[in-house]
């Protein structure tokens, strides 16, 4: 049975959230792909030296390199991972694969997400676009062998349809603009894989730029990407997606990313990066302080978003209740006393 998370106040630190809800050997999905990467939470996973994770990686830039440098990952279900380096430079992922530290299973963007969609919907499998049958994405299987793709016959047309099985990761981590303390998490911008990754998972850890009053959420429910009863922890973490971008807050940090890229070109450089930016700080506040000490706040401030407010959706209505201020029913045009009288005479009361 899928657990409901009903606590009213789930606020906690990133450290506590990872301590309680990410375990060694878990399967974990990074529930923002490319956009708003949940670095604050991922760095905490690395700091707490989680091991043997199976990671669902829809598409990433440099977060996977860091998780691998942190020796957190043993299996990787992947569709896309950014690469700048040419053939002569061995990437972090290549090094880990060659050493046998990480096993890999390749999917396409859609087929990977369809597994999570099926999992989120509680279906055993879902059809995917059958052309994948002709690709090595389908033919080459490793640790998912036998479970990677299947073929069924459509009961209505007889057509052969390719399917993927539903998957339910143990935990999803994501970063959003705002959430209330019970965990209703609101995200806007590139929605990509977030909804399906969260709803497929047993536990959802949300970090956010701001924890807001419940009424903020209630007046903008179209922005809620995952509802409170699916969320086990809420972490307020300003700049929690740095160096990636988040609409309304900040742009990506190209200078920092270039630095990271240059450092991870060598194994020693990669470890130096981890020592400095992950292990060398206690939490996200210290990370930001270190950034300010190292580069100056000027560079962080240059990334700040200018405002482009969404025109508010008016969630108002007449808000007319069954009984008006004079205790008259709008539908019956009678007072409450007259209504109770009618109920007495014709309502078919049962004595109990």
């Amino acid at each position, binding site marked *: 049975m899928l657990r409901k998370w009903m606590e009213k106040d789930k606020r906690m630190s990133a450290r506590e959230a990872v301590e309680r809800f990410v375990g060694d050997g878990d399967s974990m999905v990074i529930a923002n*792909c*490319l*956009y708003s990467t949940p670095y604050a939470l991922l760095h905490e996973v690395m700091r707490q030296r989680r091991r043997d994770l199976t990671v669902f990686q*829809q*598409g990433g*830039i440099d977060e996977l390199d860091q998780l691998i440098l942190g020796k957190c990952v043993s299996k990787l279900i*992947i*569709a*896309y*991972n*950014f*690469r700048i380096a*040419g*053939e002569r430079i061995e*990437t972090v*992922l*290549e090094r880990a*694969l060659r050493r046998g530290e990480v096993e890999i299973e*390749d*999917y*396409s*963007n*859609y087929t990977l*997400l369809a597994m999570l*969609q099926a999992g989120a919907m509680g279906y055993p499998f879902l059809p995917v*676009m*059958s*052309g*994948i049958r*002709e*690709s*090595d*994405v389908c*033919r*080459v299987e490793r640790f998912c062998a036998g479970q990677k793709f299947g073929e069924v016959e459509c009961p209505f047309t007889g057509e*052969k349809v390719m399917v993927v099985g539903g998957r339910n990761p143990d935990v999803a981590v994501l970063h959003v603009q705002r959430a209330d303390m019970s965990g209703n998490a609101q995200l*806007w*911008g*590139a*929605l*990509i*894989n*977030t*909804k*399906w990754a969260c709803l497929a998972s047993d536990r959802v850890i949300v970090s956010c730029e701001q924890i807001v009053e419940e009424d903020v959420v209630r007046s903008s429910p179209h922005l809620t990407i995952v509802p409170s009863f699916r969320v086990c922890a809420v972490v307020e973490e300003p700049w929690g997606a740095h160096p990636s*971008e988040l*609409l309304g807050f900040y*742009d*990506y940090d*190209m*200078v920092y990313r*270039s*630095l990271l890229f*240059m450092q991870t070109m060598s194994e020693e450089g990669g470890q130096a990066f981890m020592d400095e930016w992950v292990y060398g700080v206690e939490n996200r506040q210290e990370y930001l302080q270190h950034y300010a000490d*190292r*580069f*100056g706040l000027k*560079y962080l401030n240059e990334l700040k*978003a200018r405002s*482009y407010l969404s025109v508010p959706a008016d969630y108002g209505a007449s808000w007319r209740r069954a009984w008006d201020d004079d205790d008259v029913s709008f539908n019956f045009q009678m007072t409450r006393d007259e209504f109770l009288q009618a109920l007495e005479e014709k309502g078919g009361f049962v004595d109990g």
Partner: protein
Amino acid sequence: MVRYTEAEIIVANAAREIEDGDIVVIGQGIPMAAGVLAKATHAPNCVILTEAGMVDIDPFRNLLHIADPTCTRGYAYSCDMVDVFTTIVNRGLVDVTFLGVGQIDRYGNMNSTVFGDYDDFRMRMMGAGGAPEFFGYARKAVLTMRGGKFVEKVDYVSSPGYLEGYDARDKAGFPPGSGPKVVYGTKGVFHFEAESKEIYLNGLFPGHSIEEVRAEVPWELKVADDLQELPPPTQEEVDLIREFAPEISAGRKLQVELSIPRILNILSERQA
């Protein structure tokens, strides 16, 4: 006379693949520059979207990645990746899609996953990403190839093209008429024969020869009888590309060369 870079002539010609009113799926880099150029010139009503669910974007600078919403002042429809692949791609609404090439064979089968043996690889590329489905289900797939290679047999089929050629793709059940249509290399453009589906050289960029192209292809490359000389970009096109994405104009190598001093400056400035 217009002076232009290798990337700029590819962008300008690739932009002409887009017609006004097309629905176009694009990623970052040269393809996005082509899309933006088309929208700014002959195709103002094309709808540009990325698989991240940002539909009808109007980018004022190049995207860092396909889910980068900081490149546009809003967009018309915010959906997710499942919506894009099911309700747009699978329904056949994509007119043009652009994809980068790692390796390609004579029938347009494409590899963007791994060079060499899958386990004992020479290099891992970015992965299949959205390519297999876009390649499979868009009306017209346009490939751009800088640093990519023609090979007899791709090491890994990330995105099936015409398989073994002729009617193999239709027999495999892909939508009729789908499949790769055009490949832009650094020296010219390639199309696929109507019947055999074999790739052939259809046009050359100014200053390049058939022999140069043939030297990059490990089989006897077919050449169109009426081989075109592709037009250089106009001054307006070059200006638009440099306005939107100077880093695309520069190319990756120069881009890195030009940006490293700034990064080193920032580092040394702070450590001093």
